[in-house]
């Protein structure tokens, strides 16, 4: 009996060990998507990955990459913490994942870039590629640039330049209050805003400059609202996103303070449940890649994709950079006929892709994508509203102005070392 038990145990162990064997090469290509999926930024992270998953599925439904292989997104929760992200990147590398997608939070992106720099230089042949869709602190394509990082969203220098262009045209804007989160991203916005407003729009006076502790720590924005009121500002320029954004908007509406709000990510669809009508109290002007509502002005193929996006994810399309990211990535794989990050990176830099108003260009020098953008304003719109998780709140963006790529292209300070 004893002997039978031992044989049985040995048999089961061997079976389990065999089943742990690595999958064969015909399986999907894994990509780790690292975003906050818990904590105050869970809603933001969930939406970001959902969009990435949708555009990945579009690629897969169009035949995948190489000889029909599919791309697979693996969700990873970093709770918006850089330390947790380091663990997750380690885990991804240990599981043979060669591609990382991230964007929610420049503090996280910085730690990924630093970690991958070290890993890639010490492990030639096992490099990992980082596709950044939303972390827009300029340094990642300037001082901190690295060959294995690609950014698909315009950085804050470019976005602030676009907003300042809009401010220059708007004669109602005379006193600007800068309001940002106190980390790399918010600090870059503040610096660039100061520089550009002083240089390009001398009639505007900067009447306030606030840096708040970031990531949902501040629950009561009323003291800040009273400071804004005291300063006499008629406009706020802010990079706040997530709870830091909707709490500001709610506090301004509650206190009845009327200002124009120029923002970069201030209005995210997942904030609508927390803001509802408050979002219409003050005009919110946001710089975006494109919006899906002007269907006559957009190319047909994009209208089709936006339609599928709404059906599949139950949310109106809110970005275009994820589409670019996945399309360019898939094309780079096919073009280089390889799954090696080095070869894919060479194919990806200097690539052009289709865009809503013209082509999207990945600049070879610093791996920063360049494209035309739009300034938009959030307005009441019952006819063609923004849909979020099957609900509509009676509002949508409308286009103000198209900002041309050439007006927001800046020289790079990147000194890239290529393998």
């Amino acid at each position, binding site marked *: 009996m004893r002997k039978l038990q031992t044989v049985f145990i040995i048999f089961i162990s061997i079976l389990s060990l065999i089943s742990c064997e690595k999958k064969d090469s015909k399986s999907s290509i894994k990509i780790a998507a690292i975003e906050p999926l818990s904590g105050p930024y869970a809603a933001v992270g969930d939406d970001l990955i959902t969009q990435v998953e949708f555009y990945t599925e579009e690629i897969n439904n169009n035949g995948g990459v190489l000889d029909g292989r599919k791309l697979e997104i693996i969700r990873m929760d970093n709770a918006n913490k850089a330390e947790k992200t380091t663990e997750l990147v380690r885990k991804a590398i240990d599981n043979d994942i060669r591609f990382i997608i991230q964007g929610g939070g420049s503090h996280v992106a910085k730690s990924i870039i630093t970690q991958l720099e070290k890993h890639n230089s010490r492990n030639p042949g096992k490099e990992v590629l980082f596709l950044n869709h939303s972390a827009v602190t300029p340094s990642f394509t300037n001082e901190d640039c690295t060959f294995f990082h690609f950014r698909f969203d315009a950085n804050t220098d470019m976005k602030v330049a676009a907003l300042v262009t809009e401010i220059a045209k708007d004669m109602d804007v005379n006193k600007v209050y800068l309001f940002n989160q106190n980390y790399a991203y918010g600090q870059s916005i503040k610096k660039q805003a100061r520089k550009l407003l002083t240089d390009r729009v001398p009639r505007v006076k900067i009447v306030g400059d606030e840096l708040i*502790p970031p990531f949902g*720590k501040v629950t009561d924005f009323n003291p800040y609202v009273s400071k804004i009121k005291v300063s006499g500002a008629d406009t706020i320029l802010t990079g706040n996103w997530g709870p830091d954004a909707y709490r500001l908007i709610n506090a301004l509406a509650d206190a009845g303070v009327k200002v124009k709000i120029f923002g970069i990510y201030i209005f995210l669809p997942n904030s609508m*449940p927390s803001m509802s009508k408050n979002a219409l109290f003050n005009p919110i002007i946001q710089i975006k890649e494109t919006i899906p509502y002007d269907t006559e002005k957009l190319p047909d193929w994009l209208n089709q994709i936006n339609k599928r996006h709404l059906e599949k994810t139950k949310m109106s399309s809110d970005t275009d950079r994820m589409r670019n990211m996945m399309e360019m990535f898939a094309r780079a794989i096919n073009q280089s006929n390889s799954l090696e990050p080095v070869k894919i990176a060479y194919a990806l830099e200097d690539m052009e892709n289709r865009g809503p108003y013209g082509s999207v260009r990945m600049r070879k020098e610093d791996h920063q994508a360049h494209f035309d953008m739009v300034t938009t304003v959030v307005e009441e719109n019952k006819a063609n509203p923004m849909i979020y998780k099957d609900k509509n709140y009676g509002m949508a963006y409308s286009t103000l102005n198209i900002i041309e790529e050439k007006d927001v292209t800046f020289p790079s300070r990147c000194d890239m070392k290529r393998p």
Partner: protein
Amino acid sequence: MTVDIIIFTIFNGLLYGMFLFMLSSGLTLIFGMMGVLNFAHASFFMIGAYLGYQISTFTNYWIALILAPFFVGLLGVMVEKYALRRIHKYGHVAELIFTFGIFYIIEEIVQMVWGKIPVPYEIPKILNFSLFEISGMSYPAYSMFRLFISIAMFIAIYQILAKTRTGLIIKAALTHPNMVSCLGHNVPKVFSYVFGFGCSLAGLAGVLAGNVIGTEPSMALLLGPIVFVVIVVGGLGSLKGALVASIIIGLIQTISISLEVNINDLFSFLGYSIDIKSKLNEFTSITISQLAPIVPYILLIVILIARPRGLYGDRDV
């Protein structure tokens, strides 16, 4: 700084302070009674907010205002009766670890039932208007309502403890539980009810504040630390201390956001100036308003050094 801005700042500071009081009064009562530092206290606050949302989707806000704290209190009584009581004999450390575990369990349950994304808990339409305006700054009616309820709650608790027989029994059980038990009162039952009542206070704070700060699973984690600061500064077990400490902290935190002074200003007042490009400037150019969220913790450290018992406490931390 004009008078109306000062009024607005004081009003907001008071509002925030009373919110902290409602959150921490339960905790200090529980600690005063039973010596149990309930790490999960902020979790009951979160459950109060979620139940407030859920009940108001079925019926309306006003019923939620009454029912949600009641259910949270019931949950508290059950936790005390069936779990905490058994752990009591193993000592304070065991109780603390247990409440720590409860914190995690509640957070996970909340995520499983309502998801990780904030729920659309809204201010009732009847109260969603501006009550009055002073030179362009409007005072929302709902904030007034919250302030009113918190003050009413404090008066009620004070009256119960000071003037009623129940209060007498509770206060006696605080210091002489054995004697009170010998006199025929069911002391364990008193403990259960005090625990439940403390939790229901936190739940009430949740119902009132959930629709202002946003109802999502990390609420407990964000507000947990400040509650401890309040009860340590006020004195563990002292209700009056909790009130004074909450208001002080509420006012300090709100006022310090408006203070743009930094060490550079101090130096220039004294006649020195610090080079803008130097490394030292990165430290000295930090304004008090940027430090505002950590000011309560600085106060905590000062109190622990100067007067560890807290303002009105009689137990050492």
